[in-house]
């Protein structure tokens, strides 16, 4: 059991607008025998914003985050796609450029830290599949999600770019579908499976780009008659769930598509209480899901 031990990087969202992700991650991780040591000294990853103003600063800040995991001698586990890609980008750039690594370490030395490159950056989804294993998940399911058509929404930064992520084929990933099947659910293919939620251009192109993408994505899942969408990223979740109403107004169509965090979906199949998993905290009501899942028990 103890070998599934990680330095847990929460990211800002799980500590801010997505407390239900934070809580459900801990609940599910414990059940699956994953030990999470929270990196309470870690900072924001910059989310791509700092990266486009001061790249060196973003690299050093993230090198510190990685160094914190190295101090514990553990791999760093994220629950956010953007955190994953930003930390992996830092690791990729530093590991492939000795001069840059030296410059970053010169800065980290000010705080008595050093980036060595010994900890991997991994995502909750990948560890559930590779470290816990789908066979074990299958055995642990007490409430198979057989009554649910589930639309996976990967979110860009868990599949692209391949040189930073490299976990699976970015043109045809399968991990979430495989997990859904292991939980007894029916994965639903839809046109927005690999699309973008629009989150990262919210403040500069809310009307022009962001809400239009949000509407297209949720509508695509609706067209395939999905009961809910599931995403491994809290930023996608905030965009698709909390901003769905605004997106609906934009296109004048009622969508009402519930969005679940990945650990919430796993938790439901493992027999956990929907309230403990925070399903009531979503903006788009999840009542139908709760009704169905309690009836199936």
């Amino acid at each position, binding site marked *: 059991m103890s070998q599934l031990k990680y330095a847990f990087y929460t990211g800002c969202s799980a500590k801010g*607008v997505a407390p239900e992700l934070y809580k459900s991650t801990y609940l599910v991780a414990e059940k699956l025998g994953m030990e999470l040591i929270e990196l309470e*000294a870690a*900072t924001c990853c910059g989310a791509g914003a700092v990266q*486009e103003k001061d790249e060196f*600063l973003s690299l050093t800040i993230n090198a510190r985050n990685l160094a914190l995991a190295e101090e514990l001698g553990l791999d760093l586990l994220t629950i956010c796609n953007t955190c994953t890609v930003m930390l992996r980008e830092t690791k990729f750039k530093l590991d492939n450029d000795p001069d840059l690594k030296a410059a970053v370490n010169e800065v980290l030395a000010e705080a008595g830290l050093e980036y060595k490159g010994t900890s991997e950056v991994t995502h909750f989804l990948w560890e559930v599949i590779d470290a816990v294993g789908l066979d074990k998940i299958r055995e642990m399911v007490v409430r198979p999600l057989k009554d649910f058509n589930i639309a996976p929404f990967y979110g860009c930064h868990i599949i692209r770019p391949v040189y930073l992520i*490299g976990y699976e*084929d970015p043109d045809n990933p399968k991990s979430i579908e495989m997990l859904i099947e292991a939980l007894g659910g029916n994965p639903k293919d839809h046109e927005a499976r690999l699309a973008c939620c*629009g989150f990262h251009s919210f403040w500069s192109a809310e009307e022009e780009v962001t809400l239009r993408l949000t509407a297209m994505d949720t509508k695509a899942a609706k067209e395939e008659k999905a009961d809910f969408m599931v995403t491994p990223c809290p930023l996608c979740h905030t965009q698709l769930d909390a901003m769905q109403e605004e997106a609906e107004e934009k296109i004048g169509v009622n969508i009402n598509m519930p969005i679940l965090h990945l650990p919430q979906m796993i938790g439901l199949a493992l027999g956990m209480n929907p309230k403990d998993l925070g399903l009531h905290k979503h903006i788009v009501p999840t009542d139908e899901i709760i009704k169905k899942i309690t009836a199936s028990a």
Partner: protein
Amino acid sequence: MEFFNLKVFRYDPTKDEKPYYQTYRLPVEKGMTVLAALFKAKEEQDPTISFRYNCRAAICGSCAMKINGHGTLACKEQVTKILDKYNTDTIVVEPIGNVKPLKDLIFDFDYLLEKFKKVKPWFIPKAPPPPDGTEYRQSPYEHHKIDFASDCILCASCVSECNALKANDEYLSPFVLAKAYRFAADSRDGAKRERLEAVLDHLNLEWCVRCWQCTTNCPKEVQPYENIIRLRIMAAEEGFKTPGERHAEIFEEDIKERGLLNEMLLPIRQEGVIGALKRAPFGIKMLFKGKANIADFFGGHKVKRHDEVVKIYEKAKEKGKQVQIRIPQILGVVYEDKRKTRKRANFLDKEGGNQ
């Protein structure tokens, strides 16, 4: 597998009301490219299929098309690899997405060319060449900055699944911004500000959603995404005030002051009091659902060992001025797909899947 299906998008606006698909059965041959398969279908089964091609060696960029949903060069993709990649017996070829199809696999490049012209994709010298008769000079690092961006062959693979362009056809598109960067970042070019103004018109540069799809599709490793981000860095350095630049500033402040982002106070800092008032109904909705961290309204808490962050921030700001960050070489970085077990359900089979 002995045979496979080549499912071709067919459309002739002079006689077809709407596009349809036609399937050709072809033998699987080792080393056969998708372009070669198209030739075989055209020569042996149906001479009416239209598509563009020229060099057959991934240099000219003419044969860009959507293969099983993703923009790429037909001459670069091998039939056996595509069948394996999608775990299927059918290869679906369609014209590049986000652009109007003209006939079968041929798309309207003129539409992209109009966008392309807006960024003046040619060299505007900063100064006349050296009087001693030598050429314009630049350092290896200065060249490195534009090295990858110069490799663009204008094939439009990056356009195909661009999320910003999908949402809004006024978006300039990835290769256009990559080309704007290629000249704006050239130490010999004299029209940097003019070029930045052109891409910031209607905040177009800021419409990119950072989905990395362009870099994923690009058959020449141009990395349009990296170029777009670098263009934004240049705009910030040149003092252009944009929402994106303000957003970055807030993130920087929060990392320095407390470590994590204060999401609760983000709207008011991003858009001011008036702008934030517009967001009040949204805020109330979030608060009501218990999605707001009340402490954050009063500044929130700091991460542990925050003193380290302050020290690092100050030093990084100083050191950053001397550091030359390189664009990573991504050619040859491959992934290992251990999970080829699941068959891809096929939403591409739907009528008009390209639209």
